[in-house]
């Protein structure tokens, strides 16, 4: 996770979604199909999770003061609609489940015109930076995660969370 420490980047709740800042597509992310390459949706989802991680208290100051960081264990994207150069998108951030050392969250990448370009589902680990090992959350971070999970539980859970991959015959 990058966790850009800029304090100006904050989220807002609109229609049951906790949304981050607007993001633009970079020219070098366009592939031979003339659209946003599949891999760079990952960059947008990662950058588009910053408001959530910052609100949970996992910013750069936490890393420096406590010696813990966060790392991704599992990440899945469903591609729904192409994005092109000039498009502007925002990312939602919704906590699905909280464990003692990891949490599960889901996201939607939403075009400025209102349609969903892609969805993501992620498991994120709490890691002791020195030992490079998964470690239990500090009490304050656990409470922050549980509070956000309770807040987000008021919204409907997307039906694509937890589905297996497969092809239609």
């Amino acid at each position: 996770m990058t966790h850009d420490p800029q304090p100006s980047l904050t989220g807002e709740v609109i229609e049951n979604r906790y949304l981050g800042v607007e993001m633009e597509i970079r020219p070098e992310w366009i592939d031979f199909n003339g659209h946003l390459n599949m891999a760079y949706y990952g960059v947008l989802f990662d950058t588009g999770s910053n408001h959530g991680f910052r609100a949970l208290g996992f910013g750069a100051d936490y890393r420096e003061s406590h010696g813990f960081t966060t790392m991704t264990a599992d990440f899945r994207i469903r591609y729904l609609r192409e994005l092109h150069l000039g498009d502007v998108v925002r990312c939602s951030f919704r906590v699905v489940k909280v464990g003692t050392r990891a949490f599960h969250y889901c996201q939607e990448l939403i075009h400025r015109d209102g349609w969903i370009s892609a969805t993501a589902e992620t498991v994120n680990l709490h890691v002791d930076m020195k030992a490079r090992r998964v470690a239990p959350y500090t009490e304050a971070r656990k409470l922050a995660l549980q509070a956000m999970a309770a807040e987000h539980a008021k919204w409907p859970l997307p039906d694509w969370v937890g589905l297996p991959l497969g092809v239609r015959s």
Partner: protein
Amino acid sequence: MTEPYLSPPMELQPDWIDQNGHLNMAYYGVLFDMGVDEAARMFGLGWDYTSKGTHTTYSAEFRIRYVRELHLGSTVRASFRLLDVGPKAYHFCQELIHSEGWVAATGEGISLHIDQSGPKVAPYPAEVKAKLDEVLAQHAALPVPDWVGAPMRIRK
């Protein structure tokens, strides 16, 4: 003996390293995608095919499991194993393998065949479908990794 396809070696770029001092999660996707581009040539779905401008492939889904950190200077190769082939899509899995032999991450994806006049999902040409089926039959001799198709969850 059947073995999964292995891409040529790939190197990490300095701007892919994040504040944790390791390869940022998003750029594992770049490496897996480069590996798919290489493997797609086996089926006649490489640049020779897509550059004609009539048909191409899109990714429908992609999932990464992060197993081990990667650092600048590391060299990796991407394996590729077909899992299932439909008339318009295939399901595959990959491992990102460090030059020392350990697995840094696993990938699982769905690739769609696209008629660019839509763009819309379209059946594979017969020769591509035949090649996909042939490779699928070869890869069927390989074990299916236990992480394929597993739902995402946290351990308590």
